[in-house]
């Protein structure tokens, strides 16, 4: 059995990670096929005040909101908003953070010190608060939320890549490559990067979970997404004044957030087990 097959077998055996993988798969499929899956796909922009605040029923499995819109359909479309925001934000942080981490880790000069110091400074302000501040400086919109999240998350990638690169450096083989005459950039790209990639992948998965929570928090606080965008945090904020009677309005979006973030966390944990069991558990 080859390496991939072995990894797959290990993967499916780790039930937690496999469940996580399935959840993420479901999320992606829901986002892709929302128009088909949603019973009322037009409820992202149509309103039906006559069906306002109806409890879960056969016609509306998760009930309706204050404008009579089907909550299930809006949740399904919300997966798109969620994936876009978190995906771009984590992707951007990766693109910023990984190269910086590689450079800081590989070279041992004043720039490495500088990069890590800057990372520390960014990390000195709790992420949600910094994200709020950034978003308010930009002018609140979904775009500014994505920007704010990217700017606050890159240090995590940098830190982990830095630590891994330094650990690698301690091992002899890097010195050997250098002795052979390979240039620094070559060495970084061909030898260091593949070895830190597993950490990056794990970090990305956990980062997705974390970013989705932060994005929902920002939506709840009213920073970023505006009506009628079916963002989950915004929906929960809307629902508050109709409690406790319209309990479904607040409950289901929160469950959606929970399931999705759980999925990414479980996947991250599982990937960590498979890709590099030596990475300490609980090191976040």
């Amino acid at each position, binding site marked *: 059995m080859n390496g991939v097959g072995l990894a797959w077998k290990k993967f499916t055996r780790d039930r937690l990670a496999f469940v996580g993988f399935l959840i993420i798969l479901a999320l992606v499929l829901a986002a892709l096929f929302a128009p088909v899956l949603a019973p009322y796909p037009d409820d992202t922009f149509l309103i039906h005040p006559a069906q306002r605040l109806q409890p879960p029923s056969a016609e509306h499995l998760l009930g309706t909101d204050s404008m009579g819109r089907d909550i299930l359909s809006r949740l399904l479309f919300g997966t798109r908003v969620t994936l876009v925001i978190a995906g771009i934000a984590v992707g951007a942080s990766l693109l910023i953070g990984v190269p910086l981490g590689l450079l800081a880790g590989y070279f041992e000069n004043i720039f490495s010190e500088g990069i890590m110091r800057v990372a520390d400074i960014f990390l000195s302000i709790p992420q949600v608060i910094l994200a709020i501040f950034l978003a308010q400086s930009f002018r609140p919109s979904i775009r500014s939320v994505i920007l704010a999240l990217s700017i606050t998350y890159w240090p995590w990638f940098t830190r982990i890549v830095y630590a891994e690169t330094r650990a690698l450096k301690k091992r002899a083989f890097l010195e050997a490559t250098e002795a052979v005459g390979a240039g620094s950039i070559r060495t970084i790209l061909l030898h260091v990067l593949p070895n830190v990639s597993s950490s990056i992948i794990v970090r990305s998965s956990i980062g997705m979970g974390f970013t989705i929570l932060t994005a929902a928090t920002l939506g709840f606080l009213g920073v970023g997404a505006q009506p009628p965008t079916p963002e989950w945090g915004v929906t929960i904020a809307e629902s508050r004044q*109709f409690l406790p009677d319209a309990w479904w309005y607040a409950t289901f979006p929160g469950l959606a957030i929970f399931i999705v973030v759980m999925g990414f966390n479980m996947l991250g944990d599982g990937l960590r087990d498979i890709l590099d069991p030596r990475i300490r558990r609980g090191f976040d």
Partner: protein
Amino acid sequence: MEERGPSGKNSGKGFTRRDFIKTVGIGSLAISGLPFRPSGVQAADSTRYIWGGPSEFQSMDPHAIYDVTSENLRLNLYDHLYRYLDNPPKIHPWLAESYTVSDDERTWTFQLRKGAKFHNGDEVTAEAVKYSMERLLALGKGASALFKPVIDPEGIKVADRYTIAFNLKEPYAPFLSIMPTFCIVNPKVLEGKPGPWGSEWLSQNDAGSGAYVLEEYTPGVGWKGKRFKDHWMGWEGKHVDAIEFRTIHETASRVMALMKGDVHGCDGYLPVEQIAKLEKADDITVYEEQSMRVCLIRMHNQRPPFNDVHVRRAISYAFDYDSFNNEILKGRVARNPGPIPNNMWGAPADLKGYSFDLEKAKAELAKAAVKVDRPLNIHPMTGYSQTDDAALILQAGLRQIGVEVNIIRETWPTLSGKAKAMDTSPDMWIHWVSTYYADPENWIGEMYSSSRWGAWKASSWYKNPEVDALLDKARTISDHATRKDLYEKASRIVVDDAADIWIYNTKWYGPHRKSVKNLRFCPVGDGQECRWIHLA
């Protein structure tokens, strides 16, 4: 509830007396279903009346703000020369005992009652009234917009200690009716205080003569007052010794606070479902009164594309009035197609106005010279869920004729502040115009005269010389029948011009605990005058 030792561990000493008390205590807490309060709200506070509302109090200065939220401080901490009471509103002498007006409607003379005291013991004199009017005009905020066009400081004359005369710039028939918006402050208290006319000091303090004295003001949280024993009206019967007005932004929190008894009353700007729930609650009464308060969506008539009447008409046809009034508000309001409430004179009885008709909307849009090439912004108000609903309904309707709408929620102080200048004034925003005084001038006069630009009521920036002429004339004539005609005519033109989108005229809903007795509602002031009530 299981009987279990508080820590769950068996210390081996057996069930001690302390354990017993703790267990029973915690157990009964759960069983009784009530939060344990050593002294229940009713018992300890039978003399403090607490009211919760959604908006913050920006300032305690009665000359600085002029909105429904601040009515409670103007009515309770301060007095006016005349005041409205009851429904339908009747004007009563208050600090003044009587008035006379010259034949040309230009000189109004008021006789003050003797012996009325300010909170610090000073007597209320004509000098104080003069100072107050000068202050109101000089600060240029709040209700000054009502008085600036008609009176200059030079026109205020103190005839003797208790007589004051106002010589108006031109005849103004509604002058008496606007008197209840003008508060009397004590000049001696403001002397030497920081800010122009002591305004920085007065924003957090009290210089009034009203039935209650300001005890404590916390910005963003609320204010507290205690009964002024030497108030000129005296105190007969039962009263509340202390009052408190609190800001509770979240609707659910306000409703819960009322149901738990944490507050004795709250506003009626709640979602209809919450009002229905409160009506069913055992210890709550939801007072319902015929009122005069119009809900409308404003449009910035001077800013493209709203400067084209066809665009405005198209938007007017794109709002689903029936859906909003009957489904969201469950029919608790009445469709009001024009700016004056239907139950006020001056509103034409046969006015049809606009209805939800997408075909007509599209047709109007096609006729427009100014193209709609950008998304339109609509600003609902934080804490007022109806405005969110209205914005969503308009957005949905306009989408169907190809017009995009952005929804930007802001607070009332922000929006009413922005609405003062043409540049910062919103594209569209949603608010109510309540009865500040019982005259059509309160609505159509203040909203659609171009001379009133700069006040939040006039934030449609509407200018029509024909309407200006009609409204100016109606102000200066005192013959009721002629005024009625003029206002009706003006209404028809304004509606034809689709200056704004008028949605409904509402009843007043005042959810209060049953323990609140003798609430005296007047559309002016929204039932927030506290001197009449007592707690059972």
